[in-house]
């Protein structure tokens, strides 16, 4: 056996990397290292967000992290040879990871540590700038923290884009014996994975953001409502919370401030609607996740009837940056009322799928074509859906629009949670519109009629259009139905399901004009078609 040499490699524990074989790579690395007498430390990190390179393995040399990817278990022996030899030569070498243009061009405020640090090491978190904001916040008054959030122009990143500062001030101004901080981590929108990535890759950031919120509004208890479809995030988040208690970030004496903030992780039970804040609160109380009528707003009567600050993961994760570097710096990024950065998530049929954090102001075309590289199979980009299942389908011709709140709202679309799904020209927009209703029917909480019944009727109407039955009048009925759902639904589920439907009809009229069987797209509704 040769002389023992010591090395460290970084392998992501992020769900996407794991789904593409990262655990097998880690096992192979441990095995090969033992066989070669290399003392190897494997640090499992979050993902850098360049998902087409996953599993992306990193090795540090001279203070620079070098990337190798996508790595399969079979690539590991030669990688360890290169490591032992001190060369960085490998056929999958990507060079210095932070010099890759996709990475270098980003403005990473929220994701600056993700993929870099050991997500479960508080020391690592501190060494990379973590906890500076919370240390600053314990010396500030609640009002001045709320002012900073207000000044920053931060808007709720969950989808609605409501100014966070107004919510914070409302909760702070409402007197009660108990207030709550609730993090909405029920990231159910297809095409979005930023919440998952940050919880897996930098969980202390969310804990720090929530603790600051607690100090700001006078809430001593917080909950993270996490969907059950995210087992890796659940494990990392739960270990991080335990670590945060041990490290004095949570509990009766947050950073020796004498103030309490308790935090608990709650796992949902499979219901898309629980991403709606009032439904989430009912679920967190152990009930059916049915929506509540508003008012009262959760900021005034939320969890157990107490004032509750409900925000998305990314909203809380933007807080430490704002407190640490000042509201002005955050506000100076972005365009108009869309301030700061947005971690865009680019997925579907796209070459460079992943997460790209940048200041608002980037166009959809930049995100889809320049950054995303167009479709994976080289076909033309025919449509994108932005903002999840309740988001609009937009044609290629509209991609020059800026991806910010105001610009998209002006055409009836929205940023949502920043997810962009790319479709090539084999997509059938009638089928996508039908799916929007089908999904709504599947996931409606059933509390209000326009959503519960409307979704089912929507599927039926679209089937009639597909079959060529009185198309003109059925398109009119479809339009009436959408209007009714928008006006009459209690929450965004029924109220926004018409957005993908109507945008599909508006921008892709051809898809609704030609009746008959649609050979390109395989039949989907299991109940109707033989496999």
């Amino acid at each position, binding site marked *: 056996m040769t002389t023992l040499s010591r090395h460290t490699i970084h392998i992501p524990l992020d*769900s*996407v990397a*794991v*789904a*593409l074989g990262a655990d097998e790579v880690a096992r192979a690395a441990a095995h090969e290292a033992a066989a070669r007498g290399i003392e190897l430390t494997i640090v499992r990190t979050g993902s850098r967000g360049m998902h087409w390179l*996953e599993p992306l393995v990193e090795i540090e040399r001279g203070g620079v992290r070098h990337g190798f990817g996508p790595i399969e278990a079979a690539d590991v022996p030669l990688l360890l040879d290169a490591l032992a030899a001190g060369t960085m030569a490998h056929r999958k070498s990507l060079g210095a990871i932070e010099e890759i243009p996709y990475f270098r061009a980003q403005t990473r405020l929220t994701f600056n540590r993700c993929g870099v640090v050991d997500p479960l090491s508080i020391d690592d978190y501190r060494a990379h700038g973590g906890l500076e904001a919370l240390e600053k916040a314990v010396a500030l008054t609640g009002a001045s923290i709320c002012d900073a959030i207000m000044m920053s122009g931060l808007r709720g990143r969950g989808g609605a884009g409501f100014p966070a500062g107004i919510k914070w001030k409302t909760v702070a101004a409402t007197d009660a014996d108990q207030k709550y901080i609730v993090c909405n981590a029920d*990231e*159910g*929108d*297809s*095409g*979005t*994975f930023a919440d*998952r990535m940050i919880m897996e890759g930098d969980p202390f950031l969310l804990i720090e953001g929530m603790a600051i919120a607690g100090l700001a509004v006078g809430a001593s208890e917080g*909950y993270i409502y996490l969907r*059950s*479809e*995210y087992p*890796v*995030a659940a494990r990392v988040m739960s270990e991080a919370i335990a670590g945060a208690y041990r490290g004095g970030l949570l509990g009766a004496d947050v950073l020796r401030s004498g103030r309490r903030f308790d935090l608990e992780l*709650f*796992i*949902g*039970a*499979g*219901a*898309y609607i629980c991403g709606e804040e009032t439904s989430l609160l009912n*679920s*967190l*109380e*152990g*009930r*059916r*996740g*049915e929506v509540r009528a508003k008012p009262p707003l959760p900021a005034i009567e939320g969890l157990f009837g107490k004032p509750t600050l409900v925000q998305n993961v990314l909203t809380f994760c933007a807080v430490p940056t704002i407190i640490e570097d000042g509201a002005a710096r955050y506000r100076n990024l972005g365009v108009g009322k869309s301030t700061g950065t947005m971690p865009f*998530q680019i*997925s*579907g*049929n796209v070459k460079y*799928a*992943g*997460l790209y954090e940048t200041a608002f102001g980037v166009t959809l075309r930049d995100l889809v074509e320049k950054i995303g590289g167009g479709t994976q199979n080289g076909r033309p980009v025919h449509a994108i*859906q932005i903002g999840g*299942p309740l988001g609009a389908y937009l044609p290629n011709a509209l991609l020059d629009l800026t991806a910010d709140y105001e610009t998209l709202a002006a055409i009836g679309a929205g940023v949502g949670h920043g997810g962009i*799904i*790319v*479709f*090539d020209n084999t*997509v059938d927009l009638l089928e*996508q519109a039908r*799916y929007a209703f089908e*999904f709504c029917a*599947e*996931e409606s*909480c059933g509390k209000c009629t326009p959503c519960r019944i409307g979704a089912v009727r929507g599927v039926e109407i679209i089937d009639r259009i597909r079959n060529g039955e009185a198309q003109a009048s059925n398109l009119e009925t479809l339009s009436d139905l959408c209007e009714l759902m928008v006006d009459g639904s209690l929450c965004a589920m029924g109220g926004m399901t018409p957005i993908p439907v109507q945008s599909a009809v508006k921008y892709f009229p051809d898809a609704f004009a030609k009746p008959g069987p649609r050979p390109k797209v*395989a*039949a*989907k509704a*299991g109940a109707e078609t033989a*496999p």
Partner: protein
Amino acid sequence: MNTDPTDQSALTPVIQPWVGRTGGLITALRAVQAKIGFLPPETEAAAASAFNLSRAEVKGVISFYSDFHRAPQGRTVIRLCAAEACQAQGCRSLEAEVERRFALKTGMTSVSRDVTLERVYCLGLCSAGPAAMVGGRLIGKATSEKIARAVELQGAS
């Protein structure tokens, strides 16, 4: 309904620790399911009595959430993502292929109880679609071969 007191009393120790906790009923039901594999009818009475709720309320919660099952599932559960990002990557034809391969319709369990095939709406693996989960194992860029291999591995373990 089977209200065998021995069955019900066997559930109580699983449920009891969650009484008084925030959202405790949901967590308690998850705990029962983790232990037994599904929620037998006795769960309703046991949870109702522990949480001081009506049985109807407990039943309402069980029926609301798609994670809760009132009948046993297959030894291996295949969950295929059916949402938009995976649609853009061909999950509709993958579903049809997996149905053929396992001679199962989505939503069904094989007679041998080896495999359950079901849909899931987003696993957060949108950048590596189509996505699937077999047992606890995440699969990106899923093919019916990858899924079949994962099912074999599950069966072997």
